[in-house]
C-alpha cells in the first residue's frame, strides 16, 4: 500500500464510496438520558432499515454531545438529517453510495431542492457513473459562503455536464472562495471561474 500525504485536507482525485466502511462508533453515548437514547435508536434503526447511511447519524449525536447541546436539539438534528438523507437517496437513486447520499443531504441542507440533485445526476449520467460527492460538497460549501444555492447549482451543473474532474471542481471552489473574500460578488465570481474552467477544459487535448 502506498502511503500518500494529502496537504490541507483536500481530496486530489476520485472518491470511491466505500459501502459499509465502518469509521464510526455505532453506540450512543452514555451521557444521554435513557429516553433520548431510545428515541435515537428507533430513529437510526428506521434509517438503517430504509437503506440509508447511518454513520452520519451517529456522528451527529456525538457532535451534539461534544457541543453540550440540549437533548431535544440533538434529536431534532438527527431527525432532520435522517429526513435529508432520505430525500437525497430518493433524488440520487438507489445506486448512489453512502458518501454521495450524505453529501446530497448536506446540499439539501444548504438550500438545494431534491429536483436539483436529480438534475445533477441526469447531467452526469450520460458520460459516467462517477459519484457526485465532490460536486455536492462544492455546492454546499459555496452556499454557506453566501452564494445563492440556485446559482451554485447552475454553475456546477454546467461543469458536471462537461465532465470536469473532481480535482478541477475543488480548485474551482477554492478560486471562487478567494474571489469572494476579495470582495467580488457571487454572481461575477461564479461566472468568471466557470467560464475559465470551461475554457481550460476546451483547450485540453
Amino acid at each position, binding site marked *: 500500500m502506498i502511503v500518500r500525504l494529502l496537504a490541507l*485536507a483536500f*481530496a486530489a482525485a476520485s472518491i470511491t464510496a466505500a459501502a459499509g466502511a465502518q469509521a464510526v462508533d455505532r453506540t450512543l453515548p452514555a451521557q444521554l438520558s435513557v429516553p433520548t437514547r431510545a428515541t435515537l*435508536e428507533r430513529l437510526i434503526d*428506521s434509517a438503517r432499515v430504509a*437503506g440509508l447511511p447511518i454513520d452520519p447519524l451517529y456522528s451527529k449525536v456525538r*457532535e451534539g454531545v461534544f457541543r453540550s447541546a440540549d437533548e431535544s436539539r440533538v434529536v431534532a438534528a438527527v431527525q432532520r438529517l435522517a429526513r435529508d438523507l432520505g430525500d437525497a437517496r430518493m433524488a440520487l437513486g438507489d445506486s448512489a453510495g453512502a458518501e454521495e447520499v450524505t453529501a446530497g443531504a448536506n446540499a439539501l441542507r444548504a438550500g438545494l431542492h431534491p429536483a436539483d440533485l436529480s438534475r445533477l445526476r441526469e447531467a452526469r449520467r450520460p458520460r459516467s457513473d462517477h459519484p457526485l460527492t465532490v460536486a455536492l460538497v462544492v455546492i454546499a460549501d459555496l452556499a*454557506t459562503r453566501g452564494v445563492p444555492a440556485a446559482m451554485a447549482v447552475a454553475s456546477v451543473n454546467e461543469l458536471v455536464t462537461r465532465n470536469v474532474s473532481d480535482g478541477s471542481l475543488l480548485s474551482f471552489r477554492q478560486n471562487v472562495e478567494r474571489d469572494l473574500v476579495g470582495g467580488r460578488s457571487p454572481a461575477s465570481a461564479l461566472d468568471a471561474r466557470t467560464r475559465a474552467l470551461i475554457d481550460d477544459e476546451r483547450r485540453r487535448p
Partner: protein
Amino acid sequence: MSEPDSPRWLKEVTDELRRDVIVRSTWRTRLLEEVARARKPSAHDTVDERFDDEGELGHQPERHHRAITLGPLAGLAAATVLVALGAGVTYMAMSARGGGSADRQRSVAAAPPQLVSGAPASSEREVVRFELSAPRASRVALVGSFNEWNPVATPLSRDPASGKWVVSLRLPPGRHVYAFVVDGDVTADPAAPRAADDDFGSTNSVVLVTAPRT
C-alpha cells in the same frame, strides 16, 4: 406572535395560512395543455368509469424489489412504521371507494425495507495531514466524525519548522466532517470546504479521502 393562550393566536395563524398562493403560469399552462389533450367529457359519460388510484396520470410509483433482512431492531422499526401509518391506514379505510383498502394495508405493511448492502468494507486507510495556523494558541485538537468528536483523542502539535499546528491521521475513504478546538473554542478549518449544517451553532469542515490506488 401573541401569547398562544388566547384565541387571537388562532386568528394570527389562520391569517398567515390564508395568505394568497400564487399559481405559477408554467403550472397553469401545463395543466391547460393536458386538458386540451384529454378526451372531452360529456354529460353522457357512463358513471361507471373508474379511476385506478395509482399511476393514472403519469405518476408511476416506483416499484422496487427489495430483500427483507431483519436485524435485531428491524422488527421494532417495522412496528414503528406501522404505528406511524396507523393514522394513514385509518384515512384510507374511510376514503376507500370500493375494495382495495385491505390490500393496500397489507402491501404497505409488507413494503420490504432494505438493509445497507453487505458489500465488503474497505479497510484501506489513507494518511491525511491536518494543519492549522494559530500562533497564539496553547492547545489545539482535532474533533470530527472519525474520532467521535472527542476533544482529547487527537491533539495537534507544533511543527518547529513552520510554526503551524499539525497532525497526521489514517482515515478510511469517504467524506468526513471535522473542526479544530483552539484553546477551548471550536473553529472550522479556514482552508477546507464547509459543511452546510450548523445544527449546534457553528459550521464544520469537510475532508474527502480517496481510496488508495493499488
